[in-house]
C-alpha cells in the first residue's frame, strides 16, 4: 500500500512539473502583463521600469530558472497584480469554492440517487419518464444559461434569494464559511443548485442504468425470494452495487467543480478560485495561473486516489486484485 501511495505521489509531481512548464511558457507567448497592468498614460521610461521591477525584462529561460529556484523553496511566485504570494492568494479563496463544490455535490447526491433509483425501478411509470426528461434538460442546457435563469426566477422575479455574492461568513477553525448563517446560506443556495444541476442529471442517469441492470440479477431475485423487505433489497443490495460508477464519476466531477467552477463563480460573483483564475488569465498574472494549475493537478491526483481507496471499501474484488499486485 505504501509503495503504491509513493508511486502515485511521484506521478503527481511529474504531471505538475510538466503542467507548470507548459503554462509558464504558454502565458509568456500570449502577451506581456505590463501592457495590461500599467496605466496607458505612463511614458516609455516608466513602462520599462515596471517591466524591470517585475523581472519581465529577463530572457524567458532565466525567468523560468528563477521560478524553479523559488519552487525548490516552496515559493510559487508573487502575484503581479495583488502583490501577495500566489499560493496564499489561492488558498485564501479556496474555502469559498470548496463550500460551493461540496454543497453542489451534496444536493446532487441527495436528490440524484433516490430519483435515479425510482426511475430505474419503475422505468415505465409517468413520473420516471418525467425524471428522465428533466435530467436530459439538466445536462444539455448550458451551465451559464441555467445560472442566469435561476437568478432571473428566484432573485429578480420572485425575490426570494440574492442574485449573487457571498453572504455573511463565520470563522470555523479560522476558515470563513457561510453555510452557518441564514444570510450566508441564502447566498449559497442558488450557486450550489447551479453547480448541482448537471451533476444531478449525471447521477440520475448513472443510478437508473445501474438499478435497471441490477434488479434483474440473480442475487436480487434470491434476496427477494428469501423474503427480505423491499426496502432492504433496494436500500442495501441494489444501492451498494450501483454506487461504484456513481462514486467514480462524482470523484472526477468534484475535482472539476473545485478547479473549474469558473462559470458559476462568474455568473454569481462568487469569490472563489475559479473567478480568481479567470481574472488572472485576463491580466496574464502568470504566478497565479501557474500555481493554480499546479494545485489543480495535485487535487485531481489526490481525488483519484481517494476514489480508488473508496472502491476498495465498496467492492472487495478490487481489494483482492490490488493485494496480488
Amino acid at each position, binding site marked *: 500500500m505504501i509503495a503504491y501511495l509513493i508511486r502515485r505521489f511521484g506521478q503527481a509531481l511529474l504531471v505538475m512539473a510538466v503542467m507548470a512548464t507548459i503554462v509558464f511558457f504558454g502565458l509568456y507567448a*500570449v*502577451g*506581456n*502583463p*505590463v*501592457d*495590461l*497592468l*500599467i*496605466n*496607458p*498614460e*505612463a*511614458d*516609455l*521610461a*516608466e*513602462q*520599462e*521600469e*515596471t517591466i524591470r*521591477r*517585475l523581472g519581465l525584462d529577463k530572457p524567458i529561460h532565466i525567468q523560468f530558472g528563477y521560478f524553479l529556484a523559488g519552487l525548490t523553496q516552496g515559493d510559487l511566485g*508573487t502575484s*503581479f*497584480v*495583488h*502583490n*501577495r504570494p500566489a499560493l496564499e*492568494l489561492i488558498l*485564501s*479563496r479556496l474555502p*469559498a469554492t470548496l463550500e460551493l463544490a461540496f454543497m453542489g455535490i451534496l444536493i446532487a447526491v441527495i436528490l440524484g440517487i433516490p430519483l435515479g433509483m425510482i426511475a430505474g425501478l419503475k422505468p415505465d411509470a409517468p413520473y420516471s419518464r418525467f425524471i428522465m426528461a428533466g435530467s436530459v434538460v439538466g445536462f444539455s442546457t448550458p451551465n451559464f444559461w441555467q445560472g*442566469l435563469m435561476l*437568478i*432571473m426566477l428566484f*432573485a*429578480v422575479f420572485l*425575490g426570494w434569494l*440574492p*442574485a*449573487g*455574492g*457571498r453572504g455573511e461568513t463565520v470563522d470555523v477553525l479560522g476558515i470563513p464559511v457561510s453555510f452557518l448563517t441564514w444570510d450566508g446560506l441564502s447566498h449559497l443556495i442558488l450557486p450550489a443548485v447551479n453547480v448541482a444541476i448537471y451533476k444531478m442529471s449525471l447521477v440520475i442517469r448513472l443510478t437508473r442504468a445501474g438499478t435497471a441492470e441490477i434488479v434483474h440479477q440473480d442475487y436480487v431475485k434470491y434476496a427477494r425470494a428469501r423474503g427480505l423487505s423491499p426496502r432492504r433489497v433496494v436500500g442495501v443490495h441494489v444501492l451498494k452495487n450501483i454506487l461504484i460508477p456513481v462514486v467514480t464519476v462524482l470523484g472526477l466531477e468534484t475535482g472539476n467543480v473545485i478547479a473549474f467552477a469558473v462559470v458559476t463563480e*462568474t*455568473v*454569481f*460573483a462568487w*469569490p*472563489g478560485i475559479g*473567478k*480568481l483564475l479567470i*481574472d488572472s488569465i*485576463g*491580466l*496574464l498574472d502568470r504566478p497565479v495561473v501557474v500555481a493554480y494549475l499546479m494545485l489543480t493537478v495535485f487535487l485531481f491526483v489526490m481525488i483519484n486516489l481517494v476514489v480508488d481507496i473508496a472502491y476498495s471499501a465498496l467492492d472487495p474484488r478490487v481489494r483482492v486484485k490490488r493485494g496480488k499486485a
Partner: protein
Amino acid sequence: MKKLTIAAVGLLLGTVSQPALAQSLIAGFASEPSSVDPLYHNLGPNNATRKHMFEALVGEDENLGIVPMLAESWETSEDGLTWTFKLREGVKFHDGGDFTARDFLYTACRIPNVPNSPSSMTGFIKRADTIEAPDDMTVQVTTPAPYPLLLTDFASFGVISASANGHDGPVTYSKDGCAGIDSYLDSSAYNDGTATIGTGPFKFVEFVPGERVVMARNDGYWGDAPHWEEITIRPITNEGARVAALLAGDVDVIEKPPVQDLERLQSDPNVNIVQGASSRVIYLHFDHEGEPSPMIEGTDGKNPLKDVRVRKAISLAIDRPLIVDRIMGGLAVPARQLVPDFMLGVDPAIALEEPNVEEAKRLLTEAGYPDGFTLTIGSPNDRYINDSKIAQAVAQMLTRAGIKTDVDAVTASVFFKRRNNYEFSLYLAGWGSSGAGMASPLRALVASQNKEKGLGGTNRGRYSNAELDAVIEEALATVEPEAHLALLQKANNMVVDDVAILPLHFEVTPWALKAGLTMTPRADQHTVLTTVRPAN
C-alpha cells in the same frame, strides 16, 4: 400594559428608523481594485475607489476641470518654475490627526517606493525638482522647466497620512530618496486597514478581495457631509450578473450596464439610467513607419498610409454618425479631434467631416491606388465598448471605398502585445484623456517616441513630425494659460490637417441605478459613490 407600550414604541421606532437603514449604498463594479492602497496601482478601479477615502492636493470635477481640494489656493511664480500651494485649514485624517504639508511630502516620498507596484504613480511627481514645506500649511514645488500640467498630475494621487504610516517628525523630500525613512509600508498594510487613513468623505471599514470594499461615512469630513452612512463596492465582473443584481435589488447602482440591455433598462420603471460624455476617444492609428507595412498587400511593398491623401481618403470613407447610431446605440459622440468639446485644447472651428466616398476614391486614385489595396485592421475584442464591431463597420466602409479591408480582432492581452510589436498597419484603440485635456493625447499618441522627454509613450503608429513635436514641447513648457491653450490648439490643428491619427468617437458612459437615485457622471468614467443621491 407597560411592556406593550414599550413594544409599540419600539415598533414605531423601528418603522421610523427605516430610512436610516436605507442610508447604506451598495454598488456593483465591473472590475475590482487590486488594492485599497491609493499609491499601489495607477489604474481605473483603484483610482475610483481611492477617491472615496483619499483626497488629492487638487481635485478634478466631473468634467476634469481643476478645483481646490486639500489645497485651497495656489499660485505660480513669474518664471513659471515655482508653485506655492496654500493648504486647507482644519482638515483631519480619519484617525483624528491634522493634515499638514508634512503628509504631502511623505506621500511624495512613498510614491516611487511602493513595494512591487505594478503601475506606479511616479510619473506624477517626477517633474518636480524639489517639494518643500516652508510652514505647516504651505507646499512649495519647483520644476526645472516650466510645466503647465503640474496641477493635473497632483490631482491624480491621494494623500496619505505620515503618522499612520509609522513616521513621526518632519519629512524632507528629495528626488533621490527621503532622508530618515528607510522603509515604506507594503500595500498589505492598507488592505488590512492599518494604514488606510485618508481625509476623504468615507473611512475604510473592510476590504475582502473578490467580495467587497466597505466604507463608512467620515463624520469629521471638512466638505459637504456625504449622504450615505455606509457604502459597499462589490465586484461583479459579468455584465449579465451585474444587471441581475440590480434588478434583484442586491445592489443600488451598477457601472457599465451592457449596451444591448440599455433600452430595456431604460423602459423599466424600477431603474434609472444616468449617462454622461467621457473623455475616452476611440481612434484608429496608422503605421507611419513600416515599409512594407505588415498587413497591407497589393501595393508592391509600398506603405500607402505614409501618404496623407490615403489617410484623408480613409477618414472620408468612414461614416462616423452611422457607427454611433447603429453600433453604439447612440452611446457615443462622433469625433474629429482627440478630446471632447468640454476639454482644454479643442478648436471649435474644426467641424466634423462629412463622409464622402466619391472624394475618397478620387484621393486614392490621385495617390496612385486607383484599384485600392488590401488592408487588415487590428482590434481588441473585449477592451472598449463594441470594439470589434466598430472595427467591422470601419472595414465595410473602407471596402466600399475600394480598400479591401479585413478585421483581426483578438483579446486585449494578445492585442496589446502585437500592437506594441508593431504587427498592425492600422489598429483600433481607445484613449481616456486626463484633466490635462489635449496635452494628454498629444504627448502620448502623436508626439515622436522619445524616452528621455517622456513623449510618444503610446504612439505605436510611430508617427513622427518634427514640426509638431516642437509645438507640443513648447505647449508642455508654457504655464501661462492662454498661451498654453493657443499652442495646444495649434498642435491640434496640425494633427487634424495631417490626419496623423483618426479619431472615431467619444464613448458615452452609462450607469444604472435603482429608481429614485441619481448621480453625477464623470468624464473619466470613474464611479464615485459620493455623488449618488436621491433624485428630486
